[in-house]
């Protein structure tokens, strides 16, 4: 699959993650926002895994070891 497309999708996912964290911080004690945001966060973690990142969005492909 085209790596440029993967890189672009990764960047969009990172922006979503940052926006979601900001949303949670701003919501504070607002369960209807923060609990729904927690669910989105879990879905976003699956998008990260699907793009070859770890669940937090970090790179996972280090140097190829023996």
């Amino acid at each position: 699959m085209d790596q440029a497309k993967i890189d672009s999708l990764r960047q969009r996912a990172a922006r979503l993650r940052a926006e979601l964290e900001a949303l949670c911080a701003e919501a504070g004690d607002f369960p209807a926002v923060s609990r729904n945001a927690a669910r989105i966060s879990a879905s976003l973690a699956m998008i990260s895994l699907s793009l070859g990142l770890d669940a937090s969005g970090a790179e996972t492909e280090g140097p190829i070891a023996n």
Partner: protein
Amino acid sequence: MQSPTPYWNPYLETMPLERLRASQLSRFRSILTWAWDHSPWYREFYQAAGLEPGDIQTWEDARRVPKVDKGMLKGAQEQEPFPYGSRLCVPLDQVAEFRQTSGTTGTPVYQADTWQDWEWWAEAWCYILWSQGYRPRDRVFIPFGYNIFVAFWAGHYACEKIGCEVVPGGVLDTASRVLKIQELKATAMMGTPTYMLNMADVARHKLGLEPAELSIEKITCAGEPGASIPSTKQRIESAWGAKLYDHAGATEIGAWSYECAAQPGGLHVNEALFLVEIEDLVTGEIIDQPGKRGKMIITALDRRAQPCIRFDSKDLIEWAPDPCPCGRTFRLIKGGVRGRADDITKVKGVLLSPSAIEAVVRGFAELADEYEVVVERIGDSERITLKIEFNPGAEGDQEETLAALKNELRLKTNLGYVIEVHPLGALTRYEVKARRFKDLREGH
């Protein structure tokens, strides 16, 4: 519009193996570090082995990480916090889902999952179902008890994620389930191989319906090895007029493998989410080459609440020699799970696997779907009794069939059997996992 891609994840499922392996090693280190940082039990376990996460740099290092088994998991859950114990890596208020193992070997293992873990379960099932042709147009009937066992729960959630219409066939009896499939024209369903045969039997003999004339196009089986045993697979496909696909998973592990639509005679390991190693039963060495059977040691690379790291599953598997024609780079295990290291038993000095008997019995069209095997000690000798039923209309050739059956059993298992013929319907019918192999010898 229907998606034309055969892959749930066209990026990872076709990724060159060496890149996948590099990602696996990196994530193996991550999950090990996570467990070390968040679980007192894992930290003590690894400290006792003289190991720290930073020690893991290569595959050789990874193979030195000590294995865990089910007994250890049970031991860990006797500690706080209740009921999961000190293997738990998250605060209790982050646990969203409870499941447990069946406890057939004693105390069940309690399994905690966070919501992210539960999304991960469903994600793993999406790989399975998409590869088997499940699409948003499908109406999927799930004839399952929806209870404390994980079974088809994640299949249900995966169907929702894919966009299928899900019909939960929970508290209905078997006849009502068949009638609901007929009423709604369901296109797919999930169950154990045993129950798929049981439902077909009820359709035919209690309802007068021919299951192959109903609307089911594909069936996903799990929980027993039958869907990878060719004779059982053929029976179910023929009964329902549908494609039958296998999947192997476990409560403590996750949904780690699947048979794709190409039906290559084996299961893909989901190498995006799991690290599977095969260990030689005698030497303990890791087997990388195809064709040599060993037991599976598995790591769930992203499961957080109660990590599964180098878990000794005791499942017997072997790598297939050739890649799958479907184009996935995820490796195949030949013939699915071939049994369990702790299921293989010695009778009259010969190693016997219950799956080998199933493969023979289900290969005789004259025989009905149910059978039972009883191993006993009679004085100084051991006896295996095989209880069978004949299909209607096949009784006339009994003697000939029995002779052929005995011959085939001896050929395939190197053992002799006492065959008992029972009336059709006399043997126990099972709704979930069958218990057809009964070892009555002391100590077994």
